[in-house]
């Protein structure tokens, strides 16, 4: 990644962590959200620029069916979340992409929609993938209720009391999104359309804005239904309860291929985070304010950990590790910085590497970044990628040069014996059913002949074997003319020198690979908390828990309800 010059500071400790460490699934699958996570980037911008929020349309009937519009008004442009609330029969509620109906559906509109826009959207948005949106829309999404919590909250509010905090904490959200489509999907505006707008400079800002406005909608719907049910007796959510409610997200395998298919983008996310860590480690002192902020961040993380539940055996073990780590960390932070050594933050980091589990180390990383906004927040400007600039294959490179890149950057792949069945046990494919990405067992499932090219390690290994038999000084252009099947992997390998964090350095088709590790890495960059696997391919998380609401002044009062 090419960091902008102004974002560079000299490194005392010299370095990013090694890609061979950072890009292993075990570590990616332990990623924690940081202040560089995309929802944090969004909230900082909205606050710094003084964005205003209104709800010009609220048209829901007694069953909670109807439409609403939320406007986010920035210094130059306004965006509107158009929400449709539905009455969904229980037997149709599914979080899978193959679902055909949802509790609520949404589009983020570029501007303020007119009545005719709303009518057009009402004909299409509830259909999701089966409808069409236009270049006026930036995202398309949907959400399902957490039935238990939703009903509990409506019931309590309608009777004039607040929901049970234990119930709130057990779930954490009223609705969970099951897909948020952006970037040109289903006719929506291409990313090129918005690329130059400062508010969308960081990745996934459209999606994050849409989900944050959705959180307001969820709270408004339960209050609306409580009022219908309880009349004068009904009360609104207390600010304390409301703050504890995030927006859930339920997601499957579709998220995993994304980070494989966008190697430069992945590289830029990881590089920004590693650069941030390196900057903090290189600091020569821990001033009292930063130490105090670190302890506050730790206290917040401790609360978050107390509310983080999972019934999945893998995650249970990791949470046990993390709780043990936090006990040690608490002791460590009480005496931090212990001595007046020259690099207190680096000392803390090195202690963590010695003492903590991988899960704990990644949590420590997040905590260490927290007090240093001024030093690292600008890195969020470097997290997008213009993939067009890295598309062309440099045909003038020789076979020998490409082989050297493989030897240097794909050691992990070349060390794997792909003739062993366990190393090719699975295959990624796309189902005809709504194009849902799936993972098959090679010796049990049909369709391996339509395998997707996500088995990067094997492709790299095959290229290496083939190049070893080709003339060293032959151009890769000539090699590809004879062996077009290697074109896909050659394009990636040529990125390796410039983008050290582009590849996940694990075998993605082995028998023991966990797709949830890929998903966790991506979700942590979104800013997700409460990572809760429901299988090795399916996960629920929470976004924006504890964050402010759009229709809320800092003093807790609300404005803008129209």
């Amino acid at each position, binding site marked *: 990644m090419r960091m902008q010059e102004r974002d560079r500071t000299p490194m005392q400790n010299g370095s990013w962590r090694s890609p061979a460490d950072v890009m292993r699934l075990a570590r990616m699958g332990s990623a924690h959200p940081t202040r560089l996570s995309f929802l944090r980037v969004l909230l900082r911008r909205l606050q710094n620029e003084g964005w205003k929020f209104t709800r010009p349309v609220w048209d829901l009937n007694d069953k909670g069916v109807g439409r609403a519009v939320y406007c986010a008004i920035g210094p130059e442009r306004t965006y509107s979340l158009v929400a449709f609330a539905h009455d969904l029969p229980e037997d149709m509620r599914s*979080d899978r992409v193959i679902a055909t109906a949802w509790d609520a559906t949404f589009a983020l509109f570029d501007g303020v929609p007119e009545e005719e826009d709303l009518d057009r959207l009402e004909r299409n948005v509830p259909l999701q993938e089966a409808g069409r949106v236009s270049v006026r829309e930036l995202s398309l999404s949907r959400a399902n209720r957490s039935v238990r919590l939703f009903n509990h909250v409506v019931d309590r509010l309608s009777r004039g009391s607040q929901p049970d905090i234990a119930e709130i904490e057990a779930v954490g959200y009223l609705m969970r999104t099951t897909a948020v489509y952006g970037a040109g999907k289903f*006719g929506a505006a291409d990313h090129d359309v918005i690329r130059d707008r400062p508010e969308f400079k960081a990745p996934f800002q459209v999606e994050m804005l849409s989900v944050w406005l959705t959180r307001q909608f969820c709270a408004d719907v339960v209050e609306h239904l409580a009022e219908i049910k309880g009349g004068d007796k009904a009360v609104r959510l207390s600010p304390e309860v409301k703050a504890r409610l995030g927006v859930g997200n339920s997601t*499957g395998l579709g998220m995993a291929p994304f980070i494989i298919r966008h190697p430069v983008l992945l590289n830029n996310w990881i590089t920004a985070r590693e650069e941030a860590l390196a900057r903090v480690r290189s600091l020569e002192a821990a001033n009292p304010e930063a130490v105090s902020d670190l302890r506050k961040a730790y206290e917040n993380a401790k609360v978050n950990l107390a509310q983080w539940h999972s019934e999945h055996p893998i995650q249970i073990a990791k949470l046990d590790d993390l709780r043990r780590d936090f006990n040690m960390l608490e002791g460590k932070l009480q005496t931090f910085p212990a001595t007046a050594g020259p690099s207190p933050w680096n000392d803390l980091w090195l202690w963590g590497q010695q003492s903590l589990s991988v899960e704990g180390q990644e949590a420590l990383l997040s905590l260490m970044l927290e007090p240093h906004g001024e030093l690292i927040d600008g890195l969020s400007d470097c997290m997008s990628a213009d993939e067009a600039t890295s598309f062309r294959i440099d045909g003038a490179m020789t076979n020998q040069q490409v082989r050297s890149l493989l030897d240097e950057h794909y050691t992990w792949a070349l060390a794997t014996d792909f003739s062993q069945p366990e190393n090719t046990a699975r295959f990624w494919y796309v189902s*005809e059913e709504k194009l849902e990405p799936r993972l098959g067992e090679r010796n049990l499932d049909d369709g391996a002949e339509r395998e997707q090219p996500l088995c990067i390690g094997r492709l790299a290994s095959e290229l290496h074997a083939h190049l070893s038999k080709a003339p060293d000084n032959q151009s890769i252009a000539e090699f590809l003319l004879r062996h077009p099947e290697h074109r*896909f992997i050659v394009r990636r390998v040529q990125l390796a020198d410039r983008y050290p964090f582009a590849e996940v350095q694990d075998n993605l088709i082995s028998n023991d690979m966990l797709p949830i590790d890929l998903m966790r890495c991506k979700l942590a960059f979104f800013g997700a908390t409460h990572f809760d696997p429901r299988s090795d391919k399916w996960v629920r998380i929470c976004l924006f828990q504890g964050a402010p609401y759009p229709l809320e002044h800092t003093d807790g009062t609300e404005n803008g309800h129209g």
Partner: protein
Amino acid sequence: MDKHNPVGEALPTAAARTDAPLMSRNEVSALCSKAGRGAGMSWGLAEEAGYAAAWLYARGLDGPGNLASHLTFATGMTWQDICPQVRIGQWSAGTSIPLCPIALGATLSDYADLPEAQLTEGSLETGPVSHPLLVLPFLAAAAKTLGKNLSVICLGQKTGVTTNGDVLGDVTALSAGRVSELKIQIETLEADSFRERSVVPVDLETIEKLNNFALKTTVPPSERSRAGAGSLESDND
């Protein structure tokens, strides 16, 4: 369950609806890549097909239509049938079959700054090419690599591309979908021959053709496959 349709299952057949939907560039690229793969291209070449079709589409030229037509034409042909044989300044197919414009274009982009392309020394002449409009996006990539504007002569008509991806001159001959030899060289056409074209919707027949190819990259559903992809628990909680 409906078979996949990248522009939405709600889209009715051509007979029922005449106003084709405006696809995003991202959709065109994704659909055309899948179609290329479904038609038998390697994954890497299929990516080039998606790039080329979307590049043209964004400039108001019928990339998707030309690709659909070419893939139909090339059905059953092997790489060896349709890839260029590279000789200095003179590239043609090893058979009497016209060159694949994606294979030719990608190879040209690969070779842009190598002597075999002869672009910096003189000109490159090709044998007959199927749907030569699809070569234009690769000339743009080559122009960028060389830092020089390029021109291509097709059926006696000259079209230019600039280093920043503008199309100059007339594209009628290239767009006609006819098999033609090409002559490519460094040359800057008059800037006033640039014409802004608005995006033209992809017609439904093209979408259907591309969908049919793309479908060959997907796996038909089964109960086992469906069951294995989700949560182990109910979503009604």
